[in-house]
């Protein structure tokens, strides 16, 4: 299995404050990988570094074999690396359908291919079709999360990065959303890198996991193994 994403010794900082201090990790084709850790461990910053929203101090990022360390966010997005940012960030003044349109025109989808793709998104998230003409700020938190993910899927990612998709959702909805992602990945061979504070939920839906603490990877392995790991259980699973 080849790696769609390879991160080597990545260091990211906000001014003088180092947030990520030498992270090495990879995501294989079709794999769902989760990055867990406490608040402020550097998980979100790692994702931002991968998509070029934070420029690396050192280290390298390879996406689909090419070094992409200096690429711009929108270029990466058009080449299959898409982030669903934390807090969803739907385009409030646009309707659901228009939100999807923005993603479609940015990724140059037209005509029949576009229609089929939108059909597919509405099949995954039927609720979005019901609310297609609603302005997106009127959606509930769960609906906004679906819209944010649907929008990212329209862009036809090869690797989807999800930053805290369960944030602000009810436990039931959070479970649904995360399971939906892993099912979609299985069905379509989409690689996923998932950042979550809800470690139990994230590991249950993933193939592998990394545990991050104060900017470093402190544990890694198959998701089932991490779930049984004593340290991980104590620190992140509350048992």
């Amino acid at each position, binding site marked *: 299995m080849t790696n769609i994403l390879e991160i080597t010794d990545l260091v990211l900082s906000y001014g003088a404050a180092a947030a990520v201090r030498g992270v090495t990790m990879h995501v294989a084709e079709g794999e769902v990988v989760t990055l867990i850790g406490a608040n402020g461990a550097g998980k979100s910053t790692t994702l931002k570094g991968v998509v070029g929203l934070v420029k690396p101090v050192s280290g390298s990022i390879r996406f689909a074999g090419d070094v992409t360390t200096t690429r711009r*966010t929108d270029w990466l997005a058009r080449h299959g690396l898409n982030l669903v940012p934390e807090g969803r*960030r739907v385009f409030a003044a646009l*309707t659901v359908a228009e939100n999807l349109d*923005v993603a479609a025109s*940015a*990724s140059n989808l037209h005509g029949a291919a576009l229609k089929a793709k939108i059909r597919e998104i509405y099949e995954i998230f039927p609720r979005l079709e019901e609310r297609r003409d609603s302005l997106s700020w009127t959606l509930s938190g769960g609906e906004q999360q679906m819209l944010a993910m649907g929008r990212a899927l329209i862009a036809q990612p090869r690797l989807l990065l999800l930053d805290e998709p369960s944030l602000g959702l009810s436990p039931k909805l959070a479970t649904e959303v995360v399971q939906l992602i892993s099912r979609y990945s299985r069905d379509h061979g989409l690689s996923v890198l998932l950042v979550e504070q809800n470690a139990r939920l994230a590991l249950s839906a993933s193939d592998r996991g990394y545990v991050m603490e104060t900017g470093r990877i402190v544990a890694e392995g198959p998701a089932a193994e991490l779930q049984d790991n004593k340290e991980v259980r104590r620190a992140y699973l509350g048992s």
Partner: protein
Amino acid sequence: MNASKLAMPQSPTLPTAAPVRRTRATTLVSWLIWPALLVLVIALAQGIDNNYWLQIAVNAEIMVIAAVGLYVTFGLSGQVSLGQAGFYAIGGYTTGLLVTTLGFDFGLALVLGVILSGLVGLGLGIPSLRLRGNYLALATLGFGQVVALILVNWTWLTGGANGIRNIVAPIVAGFELKTVPDWAMFIGVVAVLSVFVVTRIKNSSYGRAMQAVRDSDVAASSMGVSLSQVKVLAFVVGAIFAGLAGALNAGFVTYVSPGTYDLSLSVTILAMIVVGGAASPWGAVIGAIVLTFLPEVLRPVQEYYLLIYGILLLLVVAFAPGGIWNLFRLVGSLPARFRTRARTGDQS
């Protein structure tokens, strides 16, 4: 005035009139409005007997053009510009110079003036990409001041404080606008076309990308929207319409002089959008008309004009952050809401 403190367009937490956009149901109406507006501006041009009020109406039409342009920059893409007077001046002076020194027809001079405004907008927009909010407002304010200083000091080119007089030329060979009603008709039609173009931009994929960038640049760029392209495009559109307005103004009043193109003009154009409403091109239209006629209506109270103007602006920002347009829409949606409530009320 601190522009960033003014209501930013379409804050998601504000109650706006219609959470659902019914595009299909309004298609016919939204196409019929354009011929209706053309008839209206022509009727106004022919129907207003009083030359003074007709001139004010033409001024309002010119400001409508500048304001809908800034709507694209500010309302759609969220970039504050306090330098629209600079583009307005470039449009006006270029047209004036080409007509008076090179003997160009007004139409050709106007097109070149608009192109130059757009190019300068491009030149200012690209380096300003990294700036946002207050910083962009300051950079554009600086640009406006630089243009204003050039107008006064480059006497060899701009005529200094005297400006350029006698900007009179046929639009194209053999077709000349002689009377105020002629001009009112011509500028009215251009204004309607400008609003039309801007509504098309709003509903195009570029317009939606602009709104996406305004609402969340992180989300927009991580879906592949090029922030730089979208922002520069929105900026250039604003510059082009400001240049067009300036060029038309030069032709209509037949002279340009530096006094017109100061900071207060830039602030006024921005205020038109805030007062009218930044959520729709119609907000810009309403704002331009209201703020052009207001000083005339308030002429009898002269020294209190600025006071009343300031209070109006405060009232809008404090109590109607969506502007006059959003107030209209709220009032317009009341009957529908009332019916819905009455229906659901029966069951509960």
